[in-house]
């Protein structure tokens, strides 16, 4: 009965649950690979003639034959899938059709910039979300009421509009940064703001809903009746139960950050995964496209796996006994 974290960790229900989640995650990654492969293979038009025989690309007949052999492009689709999948399991992402270089190198060249952008955007989103939620709960009503509508507005603005607005105001009007210096600190900050604002809205909506919910719980009344001040009630009682589920919401926004990066990088002229994808789409560079999608899926799955594994240790409300599927508490996440 006396429950300590370490006992929770090695308890049988937890291990069963953890094992289940790990297997699930692995299955999802493999299926994601197959799914992307199949979607991309439906491409109308023959990638071989489109790309390889395009005179601009300067492939020799030898190289074309080698690439066709490498990808087994003359084989039936299920054989191609199998070969591609086994290569993926050996962590071989293939060769770019366009540059004739390994895809892994093309990705590693640009991924740093995207990681920096996504992480900064996440920080912006979390800080903004908690700031808005704090304001909604603690500011006087005339200020709190409009603040409450803010997440909804943030969710309704296309992120390219936010980007254009930021550039217009802070680069063109105020001259805080130069569009040409797209990787500079200030430019990165504003790119992160553009990417983070829609994400912050999702986090803030859940956080505010949870805070409202918790403040209506009887324990909040009971604590108040024992003489706790309003701010103490917020910090000591409401914040933890409200923000724990937010961890899982944050994990779910990983996809948003990666998808949004496509547009944000374009607007701010950054070189990153987004620009790589755009180039791959226009040149029909299938191996690159495939690799990026799978990478994004792996990132999403791993982040969510980690959160799912850690969450039961953070939140004593989670009861793993008899819970075989999802153990997340209700987050009322805004569907993305």
């Amino acid at each position: 009965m006396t429950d300590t974290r370490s006992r929770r960790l090695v308890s049988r229900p937890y291990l069963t649950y953890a094992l289940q989640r790990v297997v699930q995650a692995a299955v999802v990654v493999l299926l994601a690979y197959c799914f992307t492969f199949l979607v991309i293979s439906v491409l109308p038009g023959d990638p071989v003639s489109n790309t390889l025989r395009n005179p601009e690309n300067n492939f020799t007949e030898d190289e074309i034959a080698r690439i066709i052999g490498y990808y087994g492009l003359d084989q039936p689709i299920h054989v191609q899938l199998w070969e591609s999948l086994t290569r993926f399991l050996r962590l071989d992402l293939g060769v770019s059709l366009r540059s004739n270089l390994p895809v892994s190198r093309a990705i590693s060249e640009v991924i740093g910039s995207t990681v920096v952008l996504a992480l900064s955007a996440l920080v912006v989103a979390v800080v903004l979300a908690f700031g808005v939620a704090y304001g909604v709960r603690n500011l006087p009503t005339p200020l709190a009421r409009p603040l409450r509508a803010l997440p909804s507005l943030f969710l309704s603005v296309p992120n390219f509009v936010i980007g254009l607005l930021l550039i217009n105001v802070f680069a063109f009007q105020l001259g805080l940064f130069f569009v040409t210096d797209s990787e500079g600190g200030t430019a990165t900050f504003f790119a992160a703001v553009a990417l983070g604002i829609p994400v912050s809205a999702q986090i803030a909506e859940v956080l505010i809903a949870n805070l409202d919910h918790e403040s209506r719980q009887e324990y909040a009344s009971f604590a108040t009746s024992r003489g706790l001040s309003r701010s103490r009630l917020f910090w000591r009682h409401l914040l933890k139960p409200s923000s724990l589920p937010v961890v899982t919401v944050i994990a779910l926004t990983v996809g948003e950050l990666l998808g949004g990066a496509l547009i944000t990088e374009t607007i701010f002229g950054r070189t990153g995964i987004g620009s790589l994808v755009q180039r791959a789409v226009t040149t029909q560079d299938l191996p690159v496209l495939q690799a990026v999608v799978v990478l994004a899926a792996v990132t999403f799955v791993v982040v969510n796996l980690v959160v799912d594994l850690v969450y039961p240790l953070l939140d004593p409300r989670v009861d793993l006994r008899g819970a075989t599927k999802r153990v997340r508490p209700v987050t009322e996440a805004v569907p993305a």
Partner: protein
Amino acid sequence: MAPQDRLNALSEGGTATLEVPPATEAGAPPVLVSVRDLCVSYGGHQVVSDVSFDLPRGHRLALIGESGSGKSTIARSLLRLLPAGVGKARGTIEVQGQDVLTLPERHFRPLRGRTIGFVPQDPASSLNPVRTIGSQAREASALLPGDLSKAQRHQAVVEVLQRVGLDDPERVLASYPHQLSGGMLQRVLIGFAVLPEPALLVADEPTSALDVTIQKRILDLLDELRDSLDISLLLITHDLAIAAERADSVVVLKDGRVQEAGPTARVSSAPTSDYAKRLHADVPALNPDRYADLRDVGAARRARASDEGPKIAVRGVSKTFTVDRSRLTAVDDLSFEVPAGTTHAIVGESGSGKTTTIRLLLGLETPDAGSIEVAGERVDGRTHGELRSLRRHLQFVYQNPFTSLDPTWKVERLVREPLDRFRIGTKDERRAAVREALDAVGLDQTLLARRPDALSGGQRQRVAIARALVLKPDVIVLDEPTSALDVSVQADIVQVLLTLQAELGLTYVFVSHDLALVRQLAHTVTVVRRGRVVEEGTVAQIFDAPREDYTRTLLDSIPDAHHGRTS
């Protein structure tokens, strides 16, 4: 003028807003709480109107009312816990001479906990679920005088937990709320509330979420603390029987207005207002023989039917569930028989296996051993399809009418559903049958086009009963059909059930934790505990000459106004 006489004066005037002499005479205890002309509204909707009462120091005052009576709202106004921005209170509430309603928050906050303690209604949700009891106890101990050391505070917490009957305080402190039972949590809450030794304890339905035997122990604890710590008690309850047993004076509320106020002895023995009279008549514990006439019809039938064989025969039934690799025996070698046209009650607290028993009886679960027969047909071991024909004769009424009716359907369709499913009669005949069933449960035809959302709890449960009746079954199984309802509504439903039984010869299996209610309507009783039969017999045998200790404990926990302690 003694406070009790003053309350008397209030009630005899027919209204509680009379002028009350403010001065306290020597010898009489001073007034601790004085409420005058309290009105509370929520968003323009007035829920409490012109309520006045006094609580002298050292006394126990009960606010009684059904849902919507405003009793909890009054308590929340006193505690200044009305939802911010929505709830507005007018009038005066003086606690030790200070007006709670007009005091600035920074002057009121020191009163919270130290002067006015609060015991909330639902122990399961009244502690922060993600913090240990210990960390919340440290917070509670901050209300103790400032010169105590950390160790002394801890010692005070441990002592108060022992005092409220928790034998292993350290273990309790290391636990999270969800690891403790409801009774233990309620003790923790009471412990926190009395730790700073407040002058007043406001207890909002402190036992309504607990089992009956635990209910009694918690109420005993409150009484004991009041005596030993000199705390005055404001008890909020829907249960007139509890108030009659536990309070010195009562204020009866309906729709936010005082109906009657006075010393408990007088109000409970000779109520003067119509509402208090009705409430008094509706409380099962105070009127064990209210439906004797109707019940005798079934009893006579029982005497006659003894040679026909029972309508329901449950023999040696066991059921074990496997939860997380551990086996849990929900029902263990349970047997009972019900003669046609009578009511058999299964009585037990939570975890007694009474709900599993019902599910076995309805064929929703399959027993591991034993047999179940209804009207001579086997229930156990048959599939959903095979049971279809039996279901026409075996109907069920759920505990909670708020979940047992599809919210998207209208009343007419809800009641007609069984007829449609069994394809009984023509369209017109079905329509007529629906109207007949609604008549039988006393529901107006105008409700036919309503959805459950637009019905009250009592109306919903009547719809559920009409739905069970419309197939003209022989047997109806009722799972605590009134436990989610107010007593006056409960009385109506019980009346409907017994009238139907007398007229149609229905056989009931009635599951309940409420012994007083069982005494009113059942003929035979099985007392169950942890899946086993403790005792069985006729109502007279069980209630007048119980053989087992557990049965006696259950009977003791029925609030009894006549043996209530007075101080």
